[in-house]
């Protein structure tokens, strides 16, 4: 049975280690915040100028001045610090954030990521996504394996790129792939969701990859 959104997020949460500073994108990545491994010191970074993000506020305690990058009301915790956008993006670009978990529209077999726009359809923007993939040393992409019957793991991205050769790990509802730029093909299938078969992944994946289940 493929993973649902919560299960994808739970699998992503396993990538977090003690002492990590973590940036979570919008969508499925946000769910990871509720699945942080117990007993570990993990600080969540919000691009709009905050480290040490707490959970959503209790009803009636929302504060318009305390939001995350998704513009949702949040809370602070004892380790919280506030800072301006320049320092916030210095943290990203300077490699200080350990890992970022992001949503994706397409990931190529070389680790290219497209996740910020669909030309002619969306008027959104890259926000901080290009800065994250350029600066954060480990990029995990979580996404549905297919969109409208089309594989999101592709030979070459057809959508505008967020970054080239930036993805380290892809977690879909069907499987987990790592990207190792030193191997050909770079994309390696390392884990399957329960009851998902190799055959099903083969059928639904347009990218070239190596089966490397451990």
């Amino acid at each position, binding site marked *: 049975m493929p993973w649902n959104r919560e299960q994808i997020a739970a699998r992503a949460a396993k990538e977090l280690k003690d002492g990590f500073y973590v940036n979570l994108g919008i969508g499925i990545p946000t769910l990871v915040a509720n699945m942080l491994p117990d007993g570990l010191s993990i600080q969540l970074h*919000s*691009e*709009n*100028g*905050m480290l040490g993000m707490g*959970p*959503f*506020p*209790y*009803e009636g*305690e*929302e*504060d*318009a*001045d*305390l*939001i*995350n990058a*998704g*513009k*949702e*009301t*949040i809370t*602070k915790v004892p380790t919280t610090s*506030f*800072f*301006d*956008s*320049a320092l*916030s*993006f210095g943290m*990203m*670009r300077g490699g200080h954030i350990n890992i970022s978990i992001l949503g994706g529209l397409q990931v190529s077999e070389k680790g*290219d990521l497209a996740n910020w726009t669909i030309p*002619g359809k*969306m*008027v*959104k*923007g*890259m*926000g*901080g*996504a*290009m*800065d994250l993939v*350029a*600066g954060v040393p480990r990029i995990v992409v979580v996404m549905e394996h297919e969109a409208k019957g089309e594989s999101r793991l592709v030979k070459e991205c057809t959508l*505008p*790129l*967020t*970054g*080239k050769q930036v993805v380290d790990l892809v977690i879909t509802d069907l499987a987990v792939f790592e990207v190792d730029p030193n191997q050909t093909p770079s994309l390696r299938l390392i884990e399957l969701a329960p009851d998902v078969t190799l055959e099903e992944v083969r059928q639904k994946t347009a990218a070239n990859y190596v089966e490397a289940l451990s």
Partner: protein
Amino acid sequence: MANKVYKESALALADLLQDNMTIISGGFGICGIPDSLLAAIEQSGVTGLTIVTNNPGLDGMGVGRLVNTRQIKKLIASYAGENATFAKQYLAGEVELEYCPQGTLVERIRAGGSGVPAFYTPTGVGTQVAEDKETRVFDGREYLLERGIFGDLAVIHAWKGDTEGNLIYRMTARNFNPVMATAAKVTVAEVEYLVEPGEIDPEHIITPGIFVKRIVEVAKPHKHIEKRTVRPRA
């Protein structure tokens, strides 16, 4: 003795506004936006504006005010979702949009404010952001050359300010405001509380008064929440 304090946003901006000027506006989403100053810009009717801001707010709120009135010629931003009117105008070719990654945007503004004309950044290499930009390799990695941004006017929102222009912010309403305060010929700050010099601890000041030419108190602004998210009480 020099006086930076103005009684109303409209008065603080009156002799500064001109058609076709570049205005840098603080805020992230609708958090920490100088809404009173933006309302005064809306009222003034100036047009052909180039607006530099993270994103154009919501319909009729923040920079969204100037979208509705078609006062904007060009927007430089990292994100333009959440504003349907802007999206419609943009898709119809009625307004220019320069996408700039958020970290590059704030760094360009910081550069402009601190006398740095250009810098190299890894952000956007190999993407459409790199089109028409110089690239250069340092230590085996490719970077883009990006230019500083310096506005004719910066409008920002702070929580508390003294009459000298020293400012502090509140939580994530800080965002772009302190950086933008440094990067324009004239910076006008709206504050929720105007106090006397010495009332803000000098260790806590985020924006020193040197960057702020004019300041106006906007008592009890109504702050909207873009996405109200809560959890149940246990």
